[in-house]
């Protein structure tokens, strides 16, 4: 079952809503939990086992961490300062061990499902390098649907308990629901315990208002996913699979179309997910904020897959860049070379780690690692050259926020992103590099004609629908970017206008969605990451 399939939309979801509404407030979270497990089971039985193990693991380790803290408090009650410090240190060390063990278990589980094949290949390369004739055959245990998402939520829970930001939860069911909530399980957003767990467990009644808003959001998501993303699937596949047959123009077109497809697919699914949450009165974190209006790459990453970005910031970037070692480096450098470049070394080490993890998080392959380092390099360059660029603006009396300059910056960022996605989508790093080179060496604009477009299944009526739909999304994005809440605005309109908008949206998706017939259903693109 997939979020954009009819069985989910008109059978599973309404049924869950109905049962949820009929039972008492206390039972509602259990309905959600059961529904979640059924949903996951339809994806994969094995996955359910992994999820249950992860749930038990963080439940146990959370309680263990808190018990350790309690014990520490008991112990240091009547001691003097020096002894206190000693005991505190001892317990801190223990807690570090517990946390490490908990994360290790989660990491082993994710490794078994996601990275085994990659590790196997690399071991074999290494052995071959030392002329050892031994071949390992390692393969991934299950298709890692959604596993990276809930594992990150699980790790954040453990670390937050360790840091004392939240208290460990005794309630196994609440934790289980937090990890398994069915709209989120495939593609996130990666939520934090403190933000969503209570909300999930509340068992709020479904209100008319929430239902309308939720369904509205789901329809908008379907529009992005079914009308645009899935329609682009075939052309993108043809271009990337037959990269050797096409010249630079078509390859560039492929990269652009893939970027559109990926955004429409991922953000569309996230709209469906958040909308589904909304129906049940659950506020899930936003994952996108008009990323293609970013003026630089680091802004892009604070608008694209936001929950992953903040996760990396909170659990990798700051812990590394503010570790004792880093602080020492920063402090000594700061005094010598000033506040801009002082933290650069520590920041860069942390940033590099983040981007290595980001690359690997998307999948165990070198083109993902390259993708990570590509963005790392772009951000690093911006960090180094920013003061110079700002000086330049000042000297030339250019206001970087002026419309025209802003547009140029936005286009520049978008171009960088598109090239990044080229490597991201390419079947391997090598192929990505070949494609990249071709764009600059074999750029022949005349190869972009109706004949090639038709061969790529981009017929004129497909292009018209893509164009119109992108325009709709673009206009809505501008309105959102301006800070106008378009949904509240619609809600205030008289009922016949409101309903006409809703009917138009629903029928538009049903008629123009690229599903059925020759369109192959496309699994959510981020589910396997």
């Amino acid at each position: 079952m997939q979020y954009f399939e009819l069985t989910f939309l008109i059978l599973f979801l309404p049924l869950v809503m109905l049962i949820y509404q009929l039972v008492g407030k206390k039972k509602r979270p259990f309905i959600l939990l059961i529904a979640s497990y059924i949903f996951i089971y339809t994806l994969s039985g094995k996955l359910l086992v992994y999820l249950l193990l992860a749930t038990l693991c963080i439940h146990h380790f959370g309680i263990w961490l808190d018990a350790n803290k309690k014990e520490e408090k008991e112990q240091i009650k009547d001691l003097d300062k020096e002894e206190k410090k000693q005991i505190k240190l001892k317990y801190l060390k223990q807690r570090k061990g517990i946390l490490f063990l908990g994360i290790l278990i989660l990491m082993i589980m994710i490794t078994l499902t996601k990275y085994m094949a990659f590790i196997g290949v690399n071991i074999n390369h290494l052995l071959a390098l030392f002329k050892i004739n031994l071949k390992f055959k390692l393969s991934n245990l299950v298709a890692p649907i959604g596993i990276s998402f809930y594992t990150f939520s699980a790790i954040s829970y453990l670390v937050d308990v360790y840091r004392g930001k939240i208290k460990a939860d005794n309630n196994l069911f609440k934790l289980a629901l937090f990890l398994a909530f069915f709209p989120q399980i495939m593609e996130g957003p990666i939520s934090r315990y403190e933000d969503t767990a209570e909300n999930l467990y509340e068992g709020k009644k479904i209100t008319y208002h929430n239902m309308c808003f939720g369904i509205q959001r789901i329809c908008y998501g379907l529009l992005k996913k079914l009308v645009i993303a899935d329609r682009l699937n075939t052309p993108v596949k043809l271009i990337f699979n037959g990269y050797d047959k096409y010249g630079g123009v078509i390859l560039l077109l492929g990269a652009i179309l893939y970027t559109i497809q990926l955004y429409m697919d991922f953000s569309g699914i996230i709209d469906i997910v958040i909308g589904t949450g909304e129906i049940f009165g659950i506020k899930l974190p936003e994952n996108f904020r008009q990323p293609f209006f970013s003026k630089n790459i680091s802004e892009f990453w604070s608008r694209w897959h936001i929950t992953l970005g903040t996760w990396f910031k909170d659990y990798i970037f700051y812990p590394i860049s503010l570790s004792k070692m880093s602080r020492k480096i920063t402090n000594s450098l700061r005094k010598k070379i000033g506040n801009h470049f002082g933290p650069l070394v520590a920041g860069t080490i942390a940033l590099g780690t983040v981007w290595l993890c980001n690359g690997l998080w998307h999948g165990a392959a070198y083109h993902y690692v390259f993708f990570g380092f590509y963005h790392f390099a772009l951000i690093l360059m911006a960090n180094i050259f920013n003061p110079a660029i700002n000086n330049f603006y000042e000297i030339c009396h250019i206001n970087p926020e002026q419309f025209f300059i802003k547009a140029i910056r936005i286009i520049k960022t978008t171009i960088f992103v598109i090239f990044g996605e080229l490597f991201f989508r390419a079947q391997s790093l090598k192929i990505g590099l070949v494609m990249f080179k071709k764009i600059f060496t074999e750029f022949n604009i005349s190869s972009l004609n109706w004949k090639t477009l038709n061969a790529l299944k981009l017929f004129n009526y497909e292009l018209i629908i893509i164009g119109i739909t992108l325009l709709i999304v673009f206009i809505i994005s501008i309105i959102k970017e301006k800070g106008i809440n378009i949904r509240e605005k619609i809600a205030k309109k008289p009922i016949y206008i409101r309903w006409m908008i809703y009917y138009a949206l629903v029928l538009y998706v049903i008629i123009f969605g690229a599903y059925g017939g020759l369109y192959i259903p496309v699994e959510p693109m981020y589910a396997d990451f």
Partner: protein
Amino acid sequence: MRNDLLEILENIKPGVDYENLNTLIDEHYLDSLSILSLVAELEDEFDIVIPTVEIIPANFNSVDNMLKLIEKLQEED
């Protein structure tokens, strides 16, 4: 204390309307590198230790919130 803080901020990234903005992080006036400098400066200036848990947008989005954080950490010590 407020003026000290403003001076530090001006030193790290000049030309921002620190007094009136409350979206310093959300709107990217302060990037993560500025935060690293800021943390180091604050720890020096006010004799506090800022734990990683406290490094969240909410605490650094406005001067008022930063002051609150500093006061809280000073008390805890």
